[in-house]
């Protein structure tokens, strides 16, 4: 079995179609860029001010003026464009980003997301997450199914929310879920787990899709 994070990132990478504009959050979502299928061209948006983000530069070739939203050195591809933060969030809020991939502390069965603070413990701030989740056409969570064995996919989030009812897809190492107005559906299941095991690791109620498939890798 491949690394959990790689499995999740590989699966998320299959969600895009040629020409999509995608914003990847920091952490695991960043890995998704490594697994874009051949023949699919994705334009990556970096909310600090550009589209056309390329891979990290070779050591020694870092340009201090070009970093991604995690503050790490990156490159830009031919055809890139820079802009200011007002324009960048105009792009995000205005629905011009096809998909955003983020991590989650908690998500619930109606698509509420909590990923920006734990009161009394961790208050990093929401950065651009609230705008991204509200503005992107498709909100994809790339997350481990549980945290220290405890479910992160809940009936109802208990942490302060990032946004209400905006999550469309959840990809974990156990499976893939669609969140729709009709409920939460298990659409794909990892080859090494059973629906029963997923039920045990998930607090939220979900419906097993009639078309349940084995999760692509």
């Amino acid at each position: 079995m491949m690394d959990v994070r790689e499995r999740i990132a590989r699966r998320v990478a299959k969600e895009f179609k040629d020409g999509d504009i995608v914003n990847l959050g920091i952490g695991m979502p960043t890995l998704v860029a490594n697994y874009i299928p051949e023949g699919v061209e994705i334009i990556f948006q970096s909310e600090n001010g550009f589209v056309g983000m390329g891979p990290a530069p070779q050591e020694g070739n870092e340009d201090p003026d070009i970093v991604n939203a995690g503050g790490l050195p990156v490159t830009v591809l031919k055809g890139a464009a820079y802009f200011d933060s007002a324009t960048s969030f105009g792009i995000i809020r205005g629905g011009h980003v096809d998909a955003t991939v983020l991590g989650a502390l908690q998500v619930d069965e109606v698509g509420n997301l909590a990923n920006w603070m734990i009161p009394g413990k961790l208050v990093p701030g929401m950065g651009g997450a609230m705008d991204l989740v509200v503005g992107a056409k498709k909100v994809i969570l790339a997350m481990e199914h549980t945290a220290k064995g405890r479910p992160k996919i809940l009936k109802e989030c208990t942490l302060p929310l990032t946004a209400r009812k905006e999550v469309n897809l959840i990809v974990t190492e156990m499976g893939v879920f669609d969140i729709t107005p009709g409920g939460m559906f298990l659409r794909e299941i990892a080859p090494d787990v059973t629906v029963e095991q997923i039920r045990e690791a998930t607090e939220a109620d979900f419906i097993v899709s009639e078309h349940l498939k084995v999760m692509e890798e």
Partner: protein
Amino acid sequence: MNKIISLEQAMDLVHDGMTVMIPGFMGVGTPETLVDGLVEKGLQDLFIICTDTARPNVGIGKLIVNGQVKKLYASHIGTNPETGRMMNEGLIDVTLIPQGTLAERIRAGGAGLGGFLTPTGVGTVVEEGKQKIVVDGKDYLLELPLRADVALIRGSKVDKKGNIWYNAATRNFNTVMATAAKTVIVEAQELVEVGEIDPNNVMTPGIFVDYIVRGNA
């Protein structure tokens, strides 16, 4: 009209308790020379408006660590543990603002708008104390403009009339902040003659800039 002044002259324009806008994303695009000037002068009780507090030894982070900041508006403080610690100990009054909302509030301040309606933050703690307005059946928060006493800007190329061109991802909050303060001081990474920047590619027109300081970088 000579706009070029020394760092010392620039610092004479900033006083204890002032509201100061400082651009930069994790330090990229931050006027380090001007920030160092604030640190050296030891100004107190500053109200800083910025998107993040960088790291303890970088950009705005230095002001935090040095205990000069009384009040802070930011979207993200997670990369500087000192900000969180001082917030928890009640030493800094921190308001967290979604990054897109922050950029837009500053733009509104510079553009004479009384506010704007954004979907970002609806259904979260961000909506506390704000007017909610329904347009076409959708909820929006009324967000109000922000202005400052001083904006400290960082231009990659600046001509002697104050026209600014920003390189790569350094633009971020520079453009909007340059419009929204009573006094605007730009740190010129490269100072050029009037006419050297193509009028088409000027990103901040010189009419917004009151003073120019040569940068050390």
